[in-house]
C-alpha cells in the first residue's frame, strides 16, 4: 500500500470521526434547546418573564432580615432544636444505612459472600434500595407512623443501604485475599475472617464513603422535613408559607442550614483527606 493511500485513509477516517463528533454535538444541542422549550412551555411561569423577578424574593427576604437583624439570633436559637433534629436524622440514617450496606456488600461480593448463590439476589436488593427515592418511602411511612423524624430516618437509611451496598462491594472487589486464606488456615469462621481479614483492609475507604454520604444525607434530611418529616425543613416551610412578616425567621433558618451544610462538608472533607492520605504523624 502506497504511503499516499495510508494518508488518504487516515484523513478520511479523521474526517468521518469529526463529522460524527459534530453530528453528535448538533443532536445534543438540539435536544437541550428543544428540551428547554418544552420545559418552558409546561412551566406555570415562563423563563424570560420570570428571569427579571428571580431576585425579588431573595431581595424581600434579605431586606426584611436586615430590617429585623436584631431578631435573627433569637430565631436561630429557637430553630436550633429543629436543626439538631435534622442533623440527627442524617447521622442515624447514615449509621444504620452503612451497617446494612456493609452487610449487603459482604453478601454481594464474589469470593467473600457467605452464600455465593445469593450474590445476584443481594445485588438486586441493593439496586432496588438505591433506586427508590427517599421521598417515596418517607411519604408512605408518614401515612403509617405519623409525621416526625422516624419515617425520614428509615427512608434515608434504606436508600443509603442500597448506595453503600454498591460502593462497598466495589471496594471489596479489591481486597487482598491472602489474609483471608491465612485466617481460614487456622480455622477462623466466616464472620471472623470478615471481621479480622476484610474490615481492616476496607475500613478507611468505607469511612470515607460514609462521610461523603453524610453530606448528601443532611441535604436529604432537610428536604424531607419540607414534606412533613420534621426538622429544619419543616420549620422553613412554616416560615415560608406565612410569607411576608416572617421572612426574618426564614432568613435565620436559611443561614443556619447553609452554615450547617458548609461546616459538615468542611469537616468531612478534612477527615476524608486524612483517611486517603494517611494521618500526619
Amino acid at each position, binding site marked *: 500500500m502506497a504511503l499516499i493511500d495510508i494518508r488518504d485513509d487516515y484523513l478520511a477516517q479523521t474526517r468521518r470521526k469529526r463529522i460524527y463528533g459534530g453530528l453528535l454535538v448538533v443532536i445534543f444541542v438540539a435536544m437541550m434547546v428543544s428540551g428547554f422549550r418544552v420545559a418552558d412551555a409546561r412551566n406555570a411561569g415562563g423563563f424570560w418573564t420570570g428571569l427579571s423577578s428571580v431576585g425579588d424574593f431573595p431581595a424581600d427576604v434579605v431586606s426584611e432580615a436586615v430590617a429585623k437583624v436584631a431578631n435573627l439570633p433569637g430565631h436561630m436559637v429557637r430553630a436550633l432544636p429543629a436543626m439538631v433534629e435534622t442533623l440527627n436524622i442524617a447521622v442515624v440514617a447514615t449509621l444504620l444505612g452503612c451497617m446494612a450496606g456493609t452487610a449487603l456488600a459482604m453478601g454481594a461480593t464474589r469470593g467473600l459472600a457467605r452464600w455465593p448463590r445469593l450474590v445476584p439476589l443481594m445485588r438486586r436488593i441493593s439496586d432496588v434500595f438505591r433506586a427508590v427515592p427517599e421521598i*417515596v418511602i418517607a411519604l*408512605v411511612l408518614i401515612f403509617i407512623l405519623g409525621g416526625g423524624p422516624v419515617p425520614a430516618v428509615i427512608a434515608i437509611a434504606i436508600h443509603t443501604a442500597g448506595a453503600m451496598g454498591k460502593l462497598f462491594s466495589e471496594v471489596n472487589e479489591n481486597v487482598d485475599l491472602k489474609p483471608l486464606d491465612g485466617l481460614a488456615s487456622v480455622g477462623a469462621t466466616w464472620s471472623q475472617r470478615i471481621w479480622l481479614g476484610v474490615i481492616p483492609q476496607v475500613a478507611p475507604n468505607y469511612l470515607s464513603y460514609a462521610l461523603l454520604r453524610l453530606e448528601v444525607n443532611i441535604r436529604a434530611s432537610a428536604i424531607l422535613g419540607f414534606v412533613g418529616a420534621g426538622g429544619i425543613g419543616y420549620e422553613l416551610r412554616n416560615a415560608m408559607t406565612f410569607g411576608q412578616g416572617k421572612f426574618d425567621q426564614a432568613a435565620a433558618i436559611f443561614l443556619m442550614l447553609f452554615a450547617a451544610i458548609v461546616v459538615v462538608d468542611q469537616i468531612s472533607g478534612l477527615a476524608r483527606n486524612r483517611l486517603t492520605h494517611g494521618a500526619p504523624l
Partner: protein
Amino acid sequence: MTAIPMPADDLRDSTIRLMTRKRRIALAVPALILVYLAYVAVAFDLGGLAQRARLDNAAILLADAVSHKVHVTRDNRRETLQVSVEGSNRAVFSESQIPDWVQAQGDGARIDLGAGHVVTYDGPRVVYDIPDYGPVTLDTSDGVSVQVPGGTLPDFINASPTRATITTDQGRVTATASRTETLRYFWGWEMFFFDLSSPFSGMTAGQVLSTIIGGAPLVEGVSNLSLALSEFWTNDIWQHGAVAWAIFETVLMAFLGTFGAAFVALPLAFLAAQNFTPSRWLRFAVRRVFDFVRGVDALIFTIILSRAFGPGPLTGALAILLTDTGSFGKLFSEALENVDDKPIEGIRSTGANAVQRYRFGVIPQVLPVLLSQMLYFLESNTRSATIIGAITGGGIGLLLTQAIQTTQDWEKVTYYILLVIVMVIAMDSLSGWLRRKLIRGA
C-alpha cells in the same frame, strides 16, 4: 530486607501496648455508637411512636395496593342508586354495565357479596344477611338505628346515632342519614387498560385481542388497534398519557439540569484550576462561588426559583442546574489540574492559539472523566428530580405526592412507585451503558 535491631523486650512491650490500645478502641467505638443511638431513640420519642403508629393504615395500604373495591351507593336524600369503582365519579357503571352480583330495581338493590353474604337495599332500610349470625337491619329514616339478632352489638359492627358500619371478610356496609354504601373488594387493579366509557370495557384480554386482530371496527373509520391504543392512552382513571408525560418531565428536569450545569461549569472550572488561571484571587473567588452554590442546596434554590418561575419542570431543572454547577465546578477543576502539560506544549509548538490549545490539548484529556461524572450525576439527578418535583410541582414526584396525600388510591401509589423505580433503574443502566461506551470508545 533488614530488620531494625531492637531489644526483644521493647518490641514485645510496644506491640502489646498497641494491641491494648486497638482493643480499647474496638470496644469504645461500638459503645459510643450505642450510647448515641440510645440518645436519639429518646430524642425521637420511639416509645411514643409505637402508640402513634397506625397499623390499621398499614393494613389498608397493603390490602388496597393489590385490590380495588366497587361501591354500591344509595343516596338516601335523592333516593338514587349508583354503582362505581372506588366511589369515583369518573368510573360509574352505566345501567347496562352493572355487574351481575348487583341486582338493581329503581333505588332498591340486592347485592351478593359472595359466600352467602347478601345485602338488600329496601328504601331507607338495609338488611345485611350474614351467614352463621343472622340478618342485621340498619334503618336510616330517622338517624341510624341498628337491629341485630342477639340484641348486643358484636365487634364487627360499629354504631353511633349518626353512622353505622358493618365490616366483614366479604365487604363493608356503611350507613348515614345521607347515604348507604356497600363495598365489595376485588383482587387486582381495576380498569388498568380501559375505563368504563371505552368500547373495550368489560372484555377479557382474549376478546380484546381478537377484536383488534379480526373484529369489525368498533368506531367507524378507526382501526381497532389505534382505537385500543388511544383508549388506553386516554384512560380516565389511570391516565397513562398524563403519567407518561410526568415521567418525561422528570427525566427532562434531570437531563436539562445535569447537562446545563456542565455547560455552565466547564468555563468556570478553567478559572478555578491552578494551571490555567495564574491569578490567585480570581481562583479563590470562583472556588468560593462553587462552594456557596453547593452549600445553598437544591431545596433553597427550588423555593427561590418557584417564586419567580412558578411551579413546573423548568423550575426543577434550573434548581438542579444551579446546585450541580457548584459540584461540577469543583470536580471539573480538579480534573483540569490533573491534565498532562505535554500535549498542550506540543500543540502550542505548532502555533495554536489558546482556544485551539484547549480544544485539542485539554478537552480530549479530560472529556472521558467529565462525561463519566456527568452521567453519574444524570442518574442521581433523576432521583433528585422526583423529589424536587414533589416540592415544585412537576413530574412524577407531584403525581406521587398527590396520590399519597389523598390516602385513597393506594393502587395508584403502588403503580407510581413501581414506575419511579423502573425509571431510575433504566436511567442507571442507560448511564452505565453510555459510560462504558464513551470511555472505551475514547
